[in-house]
């Protein structure tokens, strides 16, 4: 039964990882660049939500709703101020610049909020769950995270498939120059993609903060997990991202069930195995994206 519980917990954790990964995957798909500050932007979101909830005295969930548009604007600023210039000189520049930003963000947060870990209080939700049998429990917060991940990925899928901006994003992702020729403003598309990606990073950071304690230094780890999810799930597949999150989550919790020390190693091992035996990812398609 402990094993079943480990798998259940892994699926819940996977919902959170899918949230982390979805923005990274979107930005890579559209701009062909890996945003190395993704994890630290998520931490920024977590701190914004925590600070807002604490100082104004509102529910963390309401605070999330207020912070998301702010994170969207951060994304637009990131695109306009940094990426648009860096992308013109090549992918390498954007990697170096976002790596620099990651270091700046992490240390600014460290200066403001200190290295202490803190948590986001969501009342009884953080501890209560549905008890199934003697050893399996389904935490409500975990269920909520999975539901939000499903809604977010479904919403993104709809946005990309059905709306005008979605079509523009897909066209730019496929071939930015040709999309320009038919009148798509790639600057606007990139700004939208960055806004969505950074807002979802903030959302993921907030859910992480509700689940466990967080500190300014956790960004890099979250970036790594998000990246592993993208590779495991396969690039260009939003549902692959969800499945990748679940696979990584289950690998970590089942690894922890074997021995608590193996939790993270097991996740990395699954990532390396996918890289070795199925480099296009479990659900990846070779040359198209959702």
């Amino acid at each position: 039964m402990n094993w079943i519980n480990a798998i259940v917990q892994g699926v819940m954790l996977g919902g959170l990882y899918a949230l982390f990964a979805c923005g990274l995957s979107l930005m890579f798909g559209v701009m062909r660049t890996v945003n190395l500050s993704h994890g630290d932007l998520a931490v920024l979101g977590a701190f914004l939500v925590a600070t807002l909830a604490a100082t104004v005295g509102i529910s963390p969930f309401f605070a999330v709703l207020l912070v998301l548009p702010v994170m969207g604007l951060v994304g637009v600023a990131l695109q306009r101020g940094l990426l648009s210039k860096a992308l013109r000189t090549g992918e390498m520049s954007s990697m170096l610049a976002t790596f620099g930003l990651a270091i700046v963000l992490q240390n600014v947060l460290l200066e403001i909020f200190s290295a202490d870990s803190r948590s986001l209080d969501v009342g009884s939700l953080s501890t209560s769950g549905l008890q199934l049998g003697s050893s399996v429990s389904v935490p409500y917060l975990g269920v909520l995270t999975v539901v939000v991940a499903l809604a977010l990925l479904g919403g993104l899928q709809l946005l990309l498939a059905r709306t005008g901006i979605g079509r523009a994003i897909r066209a730019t992702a496929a071939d930015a120059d040709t999309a320009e020729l038919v009148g798509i403003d790639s600057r606007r598309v990139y700004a939208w993609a960055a806004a969505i990606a950074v807002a979802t990073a903030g959302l993921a950071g907030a859910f992480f903060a509700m689940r466990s304690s967080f500190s300014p230094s956790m960004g890099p780890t979250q970036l790594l997990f998000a990246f592993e999810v993208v590779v495991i799930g396969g690039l260009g597949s939003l549902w692959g991202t969800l499945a990748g999150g679940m696979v990584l989550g289950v690998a970590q919790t089942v690894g922890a069930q074997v021995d608590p020390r193996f939790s993270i190693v097991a996740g990395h091992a699954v990532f390396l195995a996918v890289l070795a035996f199925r480099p296009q990812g479990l659900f990846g398609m070779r040359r198209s994206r959702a």
Partner: protein
Amino acid sequence: MTTASPVAPATATIHRWTPVSRTASGALAALLLALAIAPFVFTPEVTAKLTTLFVLVVIAAMWNALAGYAGLVSVGQQGFIGLGAYGVFLLVDRGVSPFVAVVLAALLAGAVAVPTSLLAFRLTGGQFAIGMWAIAEFFRLVVVNTPSLGGGSGRSLTDLSATDPAVRQAQVYWLALALMSVLLLAVFVLLRSRLGASLEAIRDDPVGAASVGVRVTSAKRLVFVLAAVGCAAAGGLTLANTLRVQPDSIFGVHWSAYMIFMVVIGGLGTFEGPIIGAIVFFLVQDWFGDSGGSWYLIGLGALAIGMTLWMPHGLWGTVARRRDLELLPVGYRVKTPAA
């Protein structure tokens, strides 16, 4: 690059050395020889600092060979730095003398780099960068979970603490100087060879390079293995210099931040740039020390962003382009009689 353009006169000749580069290369060789007497002149504190500088020069040169020539941006070279340091423990436990162990551990890390490249080369661009980071974390966790290596709290190199500190410091210094010279020479020879031109072609356009017959993957792999050996040597030297390592610091991603900073400051894709970047970084670190803490890192990060956006050729790259300078000739020059 080697073929003259159709409009150039038939008498155009191709040179590699210039009077400036002859003088500069000679001066550098003389400087390296002169540095060998430093332990007789300076205090052990100074040689310890210089050892740190040599380590920085090595990792900057390695990162530059990867990113600036093979187009492989990695944020996971700390994985090899850590392997180099911990490889020393593995060898010392089997009775190898610590200084030999530093060299052997570096070669062992190069051997580990071969299978690693099989996995990592399935990723390209930014994905390769961060995939290397995941691999470095994997190495770190393997070390942390190995009790004989001291686990998460680290381990001391007791074999060396028995010797007289001044003698030991001098020996570590000479080893660092020798390894730095050999590794810089290796990069220089590699870049000057036919492979150097291939690598630049790969960096600029891998598909195009492949189409004119460059063996892209094997050329990249060679640089990847060399960079692993160099970074591991740097890790082993760091251990010999400080006598103690902890997995979280020797496998820390801050090494990548340092490498990127030094190369971006000095000039990506030039031979001289990373050396200059390493000296600048060393001086900055010496002035601010550890007291700067997070503000110091904020400054480094902001400077890296600024240099990337507004001075992409770095300090040396910008000067070299303006003056047409090359102190250590790794490229080719076409000379036309009319000019």
